[in-house]
């Protein structure tokens, strides 16, 4: 990817890579020792990169999660699956291209896969509404989930949205109901379900396809109750406080693992998924396959019970002293 857009904190790494490339060119056809030296430098460089990217601030993680070159749902579907057939429409109002879904095979196993789909450029983003779904998007998702249940197919959901779309039409057609109904449907679905946050996990619009047996996150993805900017403008009364909000919200994959929400982090290519789609997709494919193998051992009742227990346990509650308990 030569035309990658480079973020500030990515610059030193990109420059280092350029220098190694340059050096390789200069020393092409050199001695075996030289080749060894280059290999050593390259190993050193990737070690440095790994360290660098393991220490990103939450704010930098957020920038990677929203990186304009970050792979989207259809990129992963293209890399990980075969026989993908997209299925469209909610059978009630229209097709919402902000969510895509369809039938496919993952390592030969028949599954139903869906996810939010962002656009790569302005034209695509107008079509995809920046991956911000309207009620018909969630109702399409519900239809596909029922289809999967009917035919005993596991459901894989790739989460990547800033949030559900806040618009007049979306409210008229019941955005709140559409999300709510998705949550309830997923909670009781009688097939194995796995969600993966591949980029931005934004609020209810993300969770609407995320009530699953397993929640995975790509290394540099984020998942939050509200965007740091939205949070900053409400709690700090200043949208510019978004970097602080990003830290306070504990939205990185590591944070969610520690909070007991995320079940596993999938490593990305060094520098982020946009710098190595193939490697990242292969890691994700492996993780999905492993989790599907585990879930395949559960009966229908056990699957629903497993999911209920997972979400039932999430939260942090304390017991007040007895005398303070009545107002």
């Amino acid at each position: 990817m030569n035309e990658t857009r480079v973020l500030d904190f990515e610059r030193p790494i990109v420059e280092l890579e350029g220098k190694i490339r340059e050096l390789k060119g200069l020393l092409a056809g050199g001695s075996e020792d030289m080749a060894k030296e280059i290999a050593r430098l390259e190993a050193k460089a990737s070690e440095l990169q790994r360290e660098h990217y393991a220490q990103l601030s939450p704010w930098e993680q957020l920038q990677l999660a929203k990186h304009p070159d970050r792979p989207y749902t259809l990129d992963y579907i293209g890399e990980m699956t075969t026989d993908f057939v997209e299925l469209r429409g909610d059978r009630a109002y229209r097709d919402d291209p902000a969510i895509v879904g369809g039938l496919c095979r993952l390592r030969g196993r028949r599954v139903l896969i869906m996810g939010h789909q962002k656009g790569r450029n302005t034209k695509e983003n107008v079509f995809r509404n920046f991956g911000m779904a309207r009620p018909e998007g969630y109702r399409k998702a519900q239809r596909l989930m029922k289809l999967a249940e009917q035919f005993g197919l596991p459901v894989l959901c790739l989460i990547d949205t800033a949030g559900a779309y806040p618009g007049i039409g979306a409210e008229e057609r019941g955005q709140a109901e559409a999300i709510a109904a998705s949550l309830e449907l997923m909670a009781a679905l009688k097939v194995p379900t796995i969600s993966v946050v591949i980029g931005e996990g934004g609020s209810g619009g993300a969770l609407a396809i995320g009530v699953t047996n397993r929640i995975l996150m790509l290394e540099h993805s984020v998942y939050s109750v509200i965007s740091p900017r939205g949070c900053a403008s409400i709690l700090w009364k200043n949208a510019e406080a978004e970097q602080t909000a990003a830290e306070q919200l504990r939205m990185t994959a590591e944070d969610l693992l520690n909070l007991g929400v995320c079940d596993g982090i999938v490593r990305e290519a060094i520098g982020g998924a946009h710098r190595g789609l193939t490697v990242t997709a292969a890691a994700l494919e492996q993780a999905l396959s492993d989790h599907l193998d585990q879930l395949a051992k559960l009966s229908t009742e056990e699957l629903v019970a497993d999911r209920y227990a997972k979400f039932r346990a999430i939260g942090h509650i304390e017991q007040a002293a007895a005398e303070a308990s009545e107002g």
Partner: protein
Amino acid sequence: MAWWRRKKEALERPESGGKISVPPGLWTKCDSCGEITYTEELVQNLRVCPVCGHHHVMPTSERIAAMIDEGTWVEHDVDLTSGDPLGFTDSKRYVDRITAAQKKSGRLDAFVSGTGKLDGIDVSAGFFAFEFMGGSMGSVVGEKCTRVFERALEKQCPALVFSASGGARMQEGILSLMQMAKTSAARAKLREAGLPYISVLLHPTTGGVAASFAFLGDLIVAEPKALIGFAGPRVIQQTIGQELPEGFQRSEFLIDHGMVDRIVSRLELREHLGQLLRLLGSGEAA
């Protein structure tokens, strides 16, 4: 809020659904028509303006007293309180906000759960306390609401939730978001068991509460002119950059768009809910 309105703490709090007593001589001005009414008279009228019918904000204790039969209310989960799982600090520390809200509201968090009778029918009920941090849903609210559904299942009785909330509580981050999933999963169990759940939408019901159990009622009833929706009007306005239509996201707008079953005046709400429950088979001889 008008300066002469009395402080809430001074109200006597009935713990078992009895009459509210208000010291005489205090006045409240109607937010809608401007009419000045004796507070005592207004409270007796369930805070519905006797002149224009405007539904004023109703403290949770008065709400419980108005909906639940006298002497039948048993509050549960009374000692659940929020921790600070993220160590969250904005302009104030979250723990300090909690303490301040507890002092101001006299409640430990933004939700009251319990059991009692509504118009003679056993119910498991939950009431949002909007006076506590805008009724925002964190771990405690999610837990208590989940228990309302679980308790209905256990007692084989209907569930009712009276929602008034700005949505998920930001200070508990992702844990707040996940309460939407937890409560909806509990609600799903009730549906499977064939027990009724009526959701009552009060002013305002938005965000993560609207987008979970509040819109999952078998029946959804709203008070008049309540603001109900997913996104707040300000966010929508900023996103689309145009004025919002008159009455947008109000109960009347929702009923026109097929999103709620009924709009019911607070003065008739209890009887109406009782009638609906009986029509669904609750409280009827088997």
